[in-house]
């Protein structure tokens, strides 16, 4: 087991290196660079740009160097914890992302918990009462959440919340709490503003989880040991939770690999529509304007989290289900 973990950690290094190459060159792919975008934008508003100034900026940020050298500087910098410079914000990338990270983690965590709270009971109920009206009805609701475009739902809910409850539009708190220390009022305001994004992002995830839990649990429920347990008079709740549910949770552990990066990136589209101060809109904006170090570093960060997440879920799976560990061990 220890050997396996060490091996996996070393394997992560070339993986991340390869990812960094891909990220850097994909970001470079569209013709032009940040400064051309910047000029075009200013000119569209009637502002003028001094070509001298642009030439100076290009030199200052190393744009006149060959692309390989730019890449090398970027990767070496990251090893030292220097993620480069954001042109758009004109400050180090770490500062730009850092301030938004907390709210992103908050909102994503609450959403994930919301998804679990909704999906688990429904999934279990649907499996136990297969083909009942409840099964159909709840599954339908879940699929409806999956099928409705998130941005549309977000817009409608936002409008209604403003009209009915007077919740200010967008953002994660009322403007008056910005920059204020935490207080009950501020806490309440954040909670109020989180309802919509959590519902919108959460509903889209529940359907998939309901269906997978239902399918896995159905498989388990038909197995011999469950039938035997029932026949021996084990209480039905215990006969459901003790083993079948545990076995049906494999997929759930395997999902952890994906959860880590999604906690950080947040739901991008919804965040843009609702104007949430999370990292998602930041990334999109950075990609659009070719703010390459900001975009690249953030993608790199996500990649590292994915690699770590997959490792964690592999280890957790091995702990949870001995069959998986045996197979891995045999191959080594």
């Amino acid at each position: 087991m220890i050997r396996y973990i060490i091996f996996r950690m070393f394997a992560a290094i070339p993986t991340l290196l390869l990812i960094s190459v891909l990220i850097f060159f994909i970001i470079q792919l569209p013709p032009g660079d940040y400064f051309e975008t910047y000029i075009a934008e200013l000119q569209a508003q009637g502002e003028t740009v001094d070509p001298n100034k642009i030439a100076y900026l290009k030199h200052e940020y190393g744009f006149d160097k060959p692309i390989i050298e730019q890449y090398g500087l970027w990767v070496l910098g990251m090893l030292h914890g220097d993620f480069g410079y954001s042109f758009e914000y004109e400050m180090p990338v770490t500062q730009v992302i850092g301030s938004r990270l907390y709210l992103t983690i908050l909102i994503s965590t609450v959403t994930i918990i919301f998804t679990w709270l909704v999906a688990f009971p429904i999934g279990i109920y649907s499996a136990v009462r297969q083909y009942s009206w409840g099964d159909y009805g709840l599954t339908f609701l879940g699929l409806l959440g999956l099928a409705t475009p998130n941005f549309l739902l977000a817009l409608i809910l936002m409008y209604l919340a403003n009209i009915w409850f007077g919740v200010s539009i967008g953002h994660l708190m009322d403007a008056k709490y910005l920059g204020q220390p935490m207080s009950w009022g501020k806490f309440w305001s954040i909670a109020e503003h989180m309802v919509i994004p959590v519902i919108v992002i959460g509903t889209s995830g529940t359907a998939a989880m309901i269906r997978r839990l239902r399918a896995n649990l159905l498989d388990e429920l038909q197995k011999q040991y469950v039938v035997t347990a029932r026949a021996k008079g084990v209480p039905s709740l215990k006969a459901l939770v003790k083993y079948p549910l545990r076995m049906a949770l494999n997929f759930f552990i395997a999902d952890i690999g994906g959860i880590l990066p999604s906690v950080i990136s947040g739901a991008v589209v919804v965040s843009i529509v609702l104007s949430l101060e999370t990292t998602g809109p930041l990334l999109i904006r950075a990609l659009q304007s070719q703010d390459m170090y900001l975009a690249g570093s953030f993608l790199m960060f996500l990649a590292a989290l994915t690699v770590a997440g997959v490792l964690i879920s592999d280890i957790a799976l091995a702990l949870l289900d001995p069959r998986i560990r045996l197979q891995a061990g045999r191959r080594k």
Partner: protein
Amino acid sequence: MSGRRWSRRSFSKLAVSVVSLPLLPGLGAAAAEEPPDLAPGVVAGDMPPLAERLPRNPRVVDMAPLHKVEGRYGGTLRMIMAEDKDIRMMTVYSYARLVVFDLDLNLVPDILEKFEVEEGRIFTLHLREGHRWSDGHPFTVEDFRYCWEDVSLNKELSRGGPSQQMLVEGKPPIFEVIDETTVRYAWEKPNPLFLPSLAGGSPNYIFMPAHYLKQFHKKYADPEKLAELIASHRMRDWVALHTVMARQYRPENPDLPTLEPWANTTAPPAERFTFRRNPYFHRVDGSGRQLPYIPTVYLSMSSADIIPAKTGAGESDLQGRYLRFDNYTFLRQAEKQHPIHVDLWRDGTGSEVAFLPNLNANDKIWRGVFRDVRFRRALSLAINRHEINQQFYFGLAREAANSVLPGSPLYKRSYDEAWAAFDPDQANRLLDHMKLKKGGDGIRLLPDGRRAELVVEFAGNVEQSDIMELVREYWGDIGIKVFQRSLNLEVMRRRFLAGDTLISMWGGLSVGLATADLPPEELAPVSSAQGNWPKWGQYTETMGKAGEPVDLPEAQELLDLYHAWRVSSTTAERRGIWQMMLSIFTDQVFTIGTVNSVNQPVVINSRLRNVPKEGVYSFAPGAYFGIYMPDTFWYDEAGNKAQ
């Protein structure tokens, strides 16, 4: 350094006083001389009294001729922006400049007490005695000297040398400090660009807070301290540090002293920037009360898409940016629920949308066709501007060629009407004369036998693509088949410069309210960003290092006239040049205009006074709200709904 620390302490006390002291009207009356938010600080001795903070001769803003009334202190002004870098809009709106445009578009001194111009080439600028930066440090000629000698002429700080406005035929001025309050810039030849550039929405800064910035400058700073500062700000070198700390247009550095009415107190990134009154601001009202009336301005960040919704929910007190005419009905409805009202201002561009045939297109045949003035005129004549106006702007816009607006002193009716009537017959005749014969399907054939299929590129918003739909039909009627293609702004810019674009859709002249003293650069090929002749523009811009020399006599004439303007010495001379250029530009239809003076919704808090009911919304000249002086806006707490 000590001055700076002192100012920071006083600012934090000032913030406390705003929170702890409700702005009672009684208090304002009792301490009529001091803004109530500063009064406690003055009493406590943190700040000198008003008389010592103001310059000896402050700028007195006489409200009556401006149709304004003297106001009261208090309140906060909330505005919404979309990106952190929009913080520069605060510099635009607050519009304190060495010289400014007044409402009649004359250049008048503002930060300067007065200025003199000799032969259009020697500029003597007089500062106000006793004028101070927002941190209380004197604003002196040293700030000009530092900016010119230690920044503009410093090879490291200004790699490309001084900005274009400071050069005449490539030569910089001779700078002189005359006495304690006087500086002089003298060129060999006239520099008509100089004064307007100082008054721009994005001004040409020729002064900097030297006392503050010297700590970042290699020439003045203690090397050890400087190295420490570079490390603590995580900058590469002192050049980067100085550049970032000295940014005046984009006031992101809360420590940077300013001369504007409000100073930023929030370091980015932030969801909301808080601007507070500059206690040393140089303008007073007729009763000697120091401006601005409103002590605090909030600039909140939001995504551009929900700004109209947020504005309609009463979350902005003054909003024009990111609102469009199609938000108007929604905003009007919101008037019923929230204490706001919507006014319609006039957009200041020469044409809401204009078509730019690319005279530098790679396709030889099309290029030849575009260069034939008959073709450009035919395209213009085929457009039914009246229908566009009715369809999209309720008939409230003006149907005209891409030219200056009636508010401009250069306006002539003939420019508006140049080839702008709806006359498809004449358009057809012009094309027939060009021997572009119609094929069997009604589509004309190019000289090489290809069908005349024209791809129009635009950096799509919905409005443009709707207008494009109509124009597609108009041009179809005269035998030109049109396809539309929506692109990113920057991709489009790159494509027309590369010669790939045939014709693009863009905004009209950005200086629709031009005066003779503003540069006529949009009428001549001077920049690679001009979609109708990008390569010629690039040639001028790079002084022949890239692009192509102009090879169309009419365009060359415009360029010559522009160069003549650049060294003209009198306004009368400049007016003559402008008129000639406008008449060539419109007669040659180098750009095809549609409608202008489109309505711009401006949402204003109902209690906010001194905001004009009708205004012109334009960046240059005018700085959007800037020319209407937001420092004179005030809240009428007692009053009912405005107007």
